[in-house]
């Protein structure tokens, strides 16, 4: 690194993507081609550098996409960072290393507005204190992981009679700690509860309305969305008049049977296809800024109702209202079949009806 280069100058070299290794023995080949590289705690970071973002003014979309993997502390464009033509480079700082890890894994080499993202850790943006904390977190994690293992082994040796109950207890503990603290081997995403809040916090106030606008409709029609905001919006309004949001359970009820279906025997290829399909579906939601695994429902301001058109004539107005109500009834009966709470959806339109006449 040149002395004059500063943090940006030296960043370029260690972020140069290594060529994927072509000469691996069959048994060592992974699912994706990878370069020969060893990851240590020094290379990891809460800071992610995202290269190859098309210069289309899509920062908000980019940040929303990354926020799916955990709360983001800071983000900004790196204007001086050397970038390919028509692309931009962004820096995103996650609150937790584990989230950055998952985000990197999921987003690297992903297509984003027609361009492939290159995501890498950017530890050179850490402060001394952040580096210190990172090293200490690793120390704590190893202490926790190995202590539990030791205790587990000790129990096993000393009291084989009690082992059945103890076993399950320890397994349980270990699983939870591994998956939420820092399951490194196959990290599962962590979604802190404050997730959405902090995500919003980061937006400039101008975008605030829009982001809130996106969230409420997402929890409605996960199954039906076709990816267009306009379309899904009208759908929402037809099915749920008056901005009425269905209970959370409707989404869960719909997804649970799918999961159960997988439990049946399926040939491996079908299994893979199914997985691919679900991944793609996941991506689709991801693009819209929802995250699927959450049970938390964020309800924003009510969508404005469709303005009533005045027909300049009493009888015309009456028939227009009739038609509107009829449409709502039909829509309600449709939602009754899909949602397993018929009384709720039936009751609401009725109230509305009376008021309007």
């Amino acid at each position: 690194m040149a002395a004059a280069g500063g943090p940006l100058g030296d960043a370029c070299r260690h972020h140069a993507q290594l060529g994927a290794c072509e000469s691996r023995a069959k048994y060592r080949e992974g699912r994706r081609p990878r370069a020969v590289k060893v990851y240590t705690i020094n290379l990891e970071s809460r800071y992610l550098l995202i290269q190859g973002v098309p210069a289309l003014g899509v920062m908000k979309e980019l940040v929303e996409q990354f926020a799916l993997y955990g709360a983001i502390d800071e983000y900004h464009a790196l204007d001086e960072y050397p970038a390919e033509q028509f692309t931009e480079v962004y820096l995103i700082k996650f609150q937790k290393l584990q989230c950055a890890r998952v985000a990197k894994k999921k987003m690297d080499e992903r297509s984003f507005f027609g361009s492939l993202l290159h995501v890498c850790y950017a530890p050179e943006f850490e402060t001394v204190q952040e580096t210190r904390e990172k090293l200490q977190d690793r120390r704590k994690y190893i202490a926790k992981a190995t202590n539990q293992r030791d205790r587990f082994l000790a129990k096993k040796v000393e009291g084989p009679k009690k082992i059945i109950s103890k076993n399950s207890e320890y397994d349980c503990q270990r699983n939870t700690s591994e998956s939420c603290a820092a399951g490194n081997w196959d990290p599962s995403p962590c979604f802190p509860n404050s997730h959405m809040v902090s995500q919003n916090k980061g937006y400039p106030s101008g975008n605030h309305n829009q982001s809130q606008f996106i969230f409420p409709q997402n929890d409605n029609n996960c199954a039906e969305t076709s990816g267009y905001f306009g379309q899904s919006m009208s759908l929402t309004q037809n099915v749920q008049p008056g901005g009425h949001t269905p209970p959370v359970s409707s989404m869960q009820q719909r997804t649970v049977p799918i999961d159960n279906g997988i439990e049946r025997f399926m040939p491996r290829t079908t299994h893979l296809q199914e997985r691919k399909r679900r991944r793609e579906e996941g991506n689709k939601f991801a693009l819209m800024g929802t995250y699927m695994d959450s049970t938390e429902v964020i309800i924003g301001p009510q969508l404005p109702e469709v303005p009533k058109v005045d027909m300049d004539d009493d009888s015309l107005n009456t028939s227009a209202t009739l038609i509107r109500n009829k449409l709502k009834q039909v829509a309600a009966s449709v939602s009754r079949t899909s949602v397993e709470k018929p009384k709720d959806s039936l009751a609401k339109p009725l109230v509305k009806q009376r008021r309007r006449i």
Partner: protein
Amino acid sequence: MELGRLEYLQALVTEFQATDSPDAKEQVLANLANFAYDPRNYGHLRQLQVLDLFLDALTEDSEALVEFAIGGLCNLCLDKTNKDYILEANGVEPVINCLSSSNEETVMSAVTTLMYLTTPQSRQQTTALPVVECMLRFSLSASRRLSNLATVFLEDYCTPLQVEEARNLSKHTAVGIPLPKD
């Protein structure tokens, strides 16, 4: 599943020892070093004597092999059993030698490994005067990663007295170990 993992690791170790291809050796060593990141593999890795394999590879001529081996040690040396084993096997010395590598990754891993290997007993060795001197120089490096790491080392693992002593010494000896290239 657990059995599968052990067998896989065994296959890697066997290939590392048997192969003549330098490429394959690097790939396998990198594989093992990455496995060393996850505490769940520590038992297997000890069983297969991968710690010795890493320590031996520190003296290889190939820069890549040294980088991967010290990376592997950096990944597993926090575990108490592994730490004791490395200290017992006089592992500190070859790790200190890595500080003079021209490969930045190797140097970074070596600094972190020294931090993690520091115990009341090993402190004297891991924070010997030449090491502290080295860290002083690294703390002035243009590479933010390296300077951060060296600063943490100086602040958290050395006494102010040690740092002062090293500072005085480096005043007299202007030429030291060259900084890593990148």
